[in-house]
């Protein structure tokens, strides 16, 4: 599948943004969130900034962005429509949460309630995003039980890493949060490797035989209907060279999981400015790693239409 930059940035940024928003809400519900104005401005600014920038970027790949309002209408059948509705609804409790924290300087009571509601809405929105991909039967790498949890896990992981970086920056960090971020990162790494193992070992997928209805034997494409690449090949026929795939997978694992885990270990061992620096670096490096992860999520996904153009399996 063609890795469109707008969609890669959209899913990565909103994942991290909703993850952070949800964790802030949960923190407020547990009474762990200090009602500090600067902290509120920075943390909610980053969360809502990432969400809004991502949503704005997602309209970048539309043919007719001016008709985007129509996308809220088909929530009965379409995961994309549900995602749009959920994203808009999330702004209501998130806005109240921000209002209470920043304007009224409180993070308890009704503000905590709004925070918890925002957390729930954020989780639902991320789940809708995951379902857009998980529901697509023609893309075997996406239509698996791994896709929906992956979106939730990576949102929680990047959200925790961001929250840890922000709280460390304000001198409010703690070893528990660093530990949680490290744990989420290791979970994310394990989930990614399990997904790859599942993709490698899968069987029973459509073949060129079932795609053409020609039973038995071998079916080789000897002539395309056209000489140049058409929409189908540009959009669904993206191929990534095997050697690049291997290298990018290693780069992605280092940036998204390996280096952040090491930095969290540093933060646990050496509190103070080392922990602050390590935590902020971990957030930035992991975000870059997740952009590579999302690029690979698209680039490595194969669509059944390529069977018609000679993909062997």
């Amino acid at each position: 599948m063609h890795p469109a930059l707008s969609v890669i940035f959209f899913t990565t940024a909103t994942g991290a943004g909703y993850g952070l928003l949800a964790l802030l809400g949960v923190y407020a519900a547990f009474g762990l969130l200090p009602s500090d104005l600067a902290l509120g401005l920075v943390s909610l600014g980053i969360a809502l900034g990432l969400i809004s920038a991502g949503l704005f970027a997602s309209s970048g790949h539309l043919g007719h962005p001016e008709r985007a309002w129509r996308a809220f209408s088909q929530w009965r059948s379409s995961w994309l429509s549900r995602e749009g509705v959920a994203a808009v609804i999330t702004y209501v409790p998130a806005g109240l949460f921000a209002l209470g924290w920043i304007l009224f300087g409180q993070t308890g009571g009704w503000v905590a309630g709004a925070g918890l509601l925002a957390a729930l809405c954020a989780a639902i929105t991320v789940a809708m995003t995951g379902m857009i991909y998980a529901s697509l039967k023609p893309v075997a790498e996406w239509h698996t039980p791994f896709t929906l949890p992956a979106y939730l896990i990576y949102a929680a992981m990047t959200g925790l890493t961001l929250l840890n970086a922000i709280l460390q920056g304000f001198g409010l960090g703690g070893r528990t949060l660093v530990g949680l971020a490290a744990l989420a990162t290791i979970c994310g790494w394990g989930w990614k490797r399990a997904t790859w193992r599942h993709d490698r070992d899968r069987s029973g997928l459509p073949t060129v035989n079932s795609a053409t209805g020609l039973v038995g034997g071998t079916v080789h494409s000897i002539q395309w209907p056209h000489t140049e690449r058409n929409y189908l090949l540009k959009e669904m026929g993206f191929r990534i060279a095997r050697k690049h795939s291997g290298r990018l997978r290693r780069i992605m694992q280092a940036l998204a999981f390996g280096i952040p885990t090491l930095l969290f270990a540093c933060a646990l061992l050496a509190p103070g400015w080392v922990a602050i620096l390590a935590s902020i670096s971990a957030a930035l490096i992991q975000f870059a790693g997740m952009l590579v992860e999302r690029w690979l999520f698209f680039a490595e996904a194969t669509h059944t239409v390529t069977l018609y153009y000679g993909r062997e399996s």
Partner: protein
Amino acid sequence: MTCLPAKTEKQLGLAIDLDTCVGCQACVTSCKEWNTGGHMAPLSDTNPYGADPDGVWFNRVHTYEHTTAAGGRTVHFPRSCLHCAEPDCVTVCPTGASFKRSSDGIVLVDEDKCIGCKLCSWACPYGAREFDTEVRVMKKCTLCVDRIYNENLPEEDRVPACVAACPTGARHFGDFSDPNSSISRLSAERGGVELMPELGYRPSNRYLPPRERTQNAATVSARPLEAVTAEGGFLGWVDRILSR
């Protein structure tokens, strides 16, 4: 609404005979010619005479070599919308632009509602939908909805353009919901197959597989143009001298 109709009154579709298709591309060009002025018009072309031409087509013919124990054969394979009973391309549409008609089961796009998110083309396993980069909306086969009910056309022309154009009669049009329709009987008789049934889209169009090879055909051999055994006598001597 992008929810699918519980039941369609009819299910129009095509039966495509892979035994008789000769890959002449007449259905492809005829489709383009009709539809670039029809319901989904235009079918834009970009850079048509340049180095990297591209454009929207509803019907494309692939060619495959199918090799089995019985030997190999060339199969021409026209690929277009199958007007599925359970088309995910419709249900994924966030705007209601994609829909399946309850009257005849045809899957269509309302161009005025399409936001061009392309998700429907991802959801189609068969590559039936193509994005028009000029008009910036998704386009697809309409089963020539503007021909088949068109009272301005003579009755025999009220079939999809691809069917009307086929010189070998490899394309058949009709109602699959009626088990006694000619297309249903043809499909049953020839063992018409669904493409990728394992994905559960329940496509309406059927592909009639190439017929079994017959062992009863006469052995055709032409008479040799000249004698293959060496001639004797004077001419034989001349032949031997000249052949040196």
